[in-house]
């Protein structure tokens, strides 16, 4: 004990001086809590990716193949030729710094390599060195550097500290989509078999079984039936959704998070109740039982394979169009990549609401409509009986889930729906919503427990804005339209603003929805009293 330093001595021993080296020279420690566990071989091999065997990012020596530099070089070259956007993103950055302070991971950590510009520079420096004349001649002077094993480690560390939310790209005057730089970085790492299991397992499960968790068809059906039992208990109405029904007008696809984990399950119940109230001719599919597409976080090949399943099922069942649930990145895949990967979906019809007759021309190529567009249209045409007072115990704010907001511009519809089903809605500050929305901190396959610290500090800017409306207006419910949000927010809120819960919009819709023949509702979808007073009265 006598050897312990005194507090003052201990404090003085801490070096507060920022490093003077250039960023390239600053080491990127790969320590537990900073990295997600690597992908297992079985999950890589089913997708025909390289299998590196068992390894850990903490290992000194990583299991790289002998010709790893050649693999990266050729992979990079192939992508530069294939994607003109990548070449533009590599060439055009003038390092103006507009993106630098816009990333939630940088805002939460202060780690310069989390600045989008520097994250892109991790890849760009190799591009300059290997693919530009200036780089070949001037080397370091032109911002190039050689590809070393340390660079690979750095890629792994920082491309898996980006949630591909694209907030930074909103501020880039050249429109550089740094999320696509991350995607390319991850694709290149994937060529070496360096991936994370939280992403590869859902990809493999989705490919083989139909959804992220590997829930088998009969289990999916039983779970949905169980949720229908709950609905019957709450409303007195028995719902019997169909599965894999050929000839249905609409195929409904939603992320599996909506039926295997709370609070997503309440959103799923909300969909079922809405469809029942409308008498919609729809079917669920046990084959396309996943809206999420973790292929987006892996490689374009994996993304294409998983996306094609949804359309193959729509074709097999002979539906007219697809209605999609409250998912985040599914909508980025649909709106930005589906058409060039698997489209156009000519065998389907341009979506038309059978209730209002509205034609969704915005989905004329993908034939897939977002459920908040569909519901907003129903409300607009006065097709739903709603009692918003059933949500009166909730003071709601809305988190623009990154992908629906920035990848498809879905900004007004969710707000329109919320305003019609809730009496108390409050916006978060302007620079934290709509196009400028802050990520939950767990997107793009980072929603795993081993990086909980990273998720909580990355989610700070979002939570901080929620805290503000909680303190100012008494907000106690955070609505969102993304299954990853619904999984990520409960711990994020508990850490930063414990008084605020998480919900999907269609849970709120179903609470307010007055269904023909329903019994008097005494609880919400969570089996909790509709009003706070009833709760207190019960206790009394």
């Amino acid at each position: 004990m006598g050897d312990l330093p005194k507090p003052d001595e201990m404090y003085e021993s801490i070096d507060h001086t920022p490093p003077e080296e250039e960023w390239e020279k600053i080491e990127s420690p790969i320590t537990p809590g900073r990295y997600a566990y690597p992908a297992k071989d079985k999950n890589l091999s089913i997708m025909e990716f390289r299998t590196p065997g068992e390894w850990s990012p903490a290992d000194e020596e990583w299991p790289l193949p002998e010709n790893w530099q050649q693999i990266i070089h050729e992979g990079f070259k192939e992508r530069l030729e294939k994607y003109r956007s990548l070449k533009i993103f590599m060439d055009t950055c003038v390092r103006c710094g507009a993106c630098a302070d816009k990333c939630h991971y940088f805002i939460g950590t202060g780690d310069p390599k989390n600045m989008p510009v520097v994250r892109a520079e991790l890849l760009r420096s190799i591009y300059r060195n290997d693919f530009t004349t200036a780089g070949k001649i001037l080397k370091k002077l032109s911002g190039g550097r050689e590809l070393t094993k340390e660079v690979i480690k750095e890629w792994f560390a920082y491309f898996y500290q980006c949630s591909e939310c694209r907030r930074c790209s909103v501020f880039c005057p050249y429109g550089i989509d740094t999320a696509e730089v991350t995607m390319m970085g991850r694709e290149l790492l994937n060529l070496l078999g360096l991936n994370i299991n939280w992403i590869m397992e859902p990809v493999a499960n989705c490919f083989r079984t139909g959804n992220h968790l590997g829930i088998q068809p009969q289990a999916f059906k039983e779970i949905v039936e169980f949720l229908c039992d709950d609905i019957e208990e709450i409303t007195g109405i028995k719902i019997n959704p169909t599965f894999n029904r050929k000839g249905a007008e609409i195929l409904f696809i939603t992320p599996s998070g909506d039926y295997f984990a709370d609070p997503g399950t309440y959103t799923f119940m909300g969909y079922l109740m809405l469809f029942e109230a409308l008498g919609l001719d729809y079917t669920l599919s046990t084959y396309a039982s996943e809206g999420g597409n973790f292929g987006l976080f892996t490689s374009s090949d994996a993304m294409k394979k998983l996306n094609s399943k949804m359309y193959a099922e729509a074709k097999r069942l002979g539906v007219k169009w697809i209605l999609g649930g409250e998912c985040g990145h599914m909508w980025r895949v649909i709106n930005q990549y589906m058409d060039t990967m698997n489209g156009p979906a000519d065998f389907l019809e341009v979506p038309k609401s059978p209730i209002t007759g509205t034609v969704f021309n915005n989905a004329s190529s993908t034939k897939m409509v977002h459920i908040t567009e569909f519901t907003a249209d129903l409300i607009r045409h006065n097709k739903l009986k709603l009692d918003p007072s059933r949500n009166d115990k909730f003071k709601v704010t809305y988190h623009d889930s990154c992908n629906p907001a920035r990848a498809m511009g879905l900004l007004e519809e969710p707000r329109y729906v919320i305003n019609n089903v809730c009496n108390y809605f409050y916006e978060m500050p302007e620079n934290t919503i709509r196009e400028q929305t802050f990520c939950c901190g767990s997107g793009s396959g980072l929603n795993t427990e081993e990086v909980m610290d990273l998720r909580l500090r990355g989610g700070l800017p979002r939570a901080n804005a929620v805290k503000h409306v909680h303190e100012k207006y008494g907000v106690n419910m955070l609505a969102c339209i993304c299954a990853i949000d619904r999984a990520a927010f409960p711990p994020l809120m508990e850490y930063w603003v414990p008084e605020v819960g998480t919900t999907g919009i269609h849970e709120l819709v179903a609470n307010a929805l007055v269904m023909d023949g329903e019994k008097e509702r005494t609880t919400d979808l969570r089996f909790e009293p509709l009003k706070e007073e009833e709760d207190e009265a019960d206790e009394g």
Partner: protein
Amino acid sequence: MNPQTLLSEKRKEIVGKWFDEVIGAYPEDGAKFFKEKSDPFANPVGNTLYRCLNELFDEVIKSEMDQAAVDNALDGIVRIQSLQEFMPSVAIGFIFTIKPTISKRVKKYREDKEVEKYLTALDANIECLLRRSFDLYMQCRQKVFEFRANQSRDRVRQLLIKKGYIKELPEKGENLEDITT
């Protein structure tokens, strides 16, 4: 000279120095960003650290601190820094950095018995902050471990319940028969 009034008048200067010390623990570019603290939503870390240091300063110079106010201000700082990969000693070490700044400001009055007495009390206040921040730091870390354990445990638990493979005991007041039939 009342030392509390003296320090209070120098609040902006002292807290500014204290803030610089805290921010100095971050890499250069990060620190530069955190210093731009005016927008609480664009820069929650810098803004929160600065606001909480001000609140802490107001308490620490008092002869009797308001424990709730101290906890609230400390929580704002420690909740952030406990997540930022600092060593625990660094995450709560910011408490000490105010000492030399204050000492400098009251140096010329040190001979005064009253000032000396005040500084001894102030030392006790700072020690109190340190003890409390250690508690808060551990609470925050425990929370993170709890989240990790819960997520790991709950990943498929609800599925097992929904499929009827497992049934938990009823809450007090419910009938066992209700859930077993």
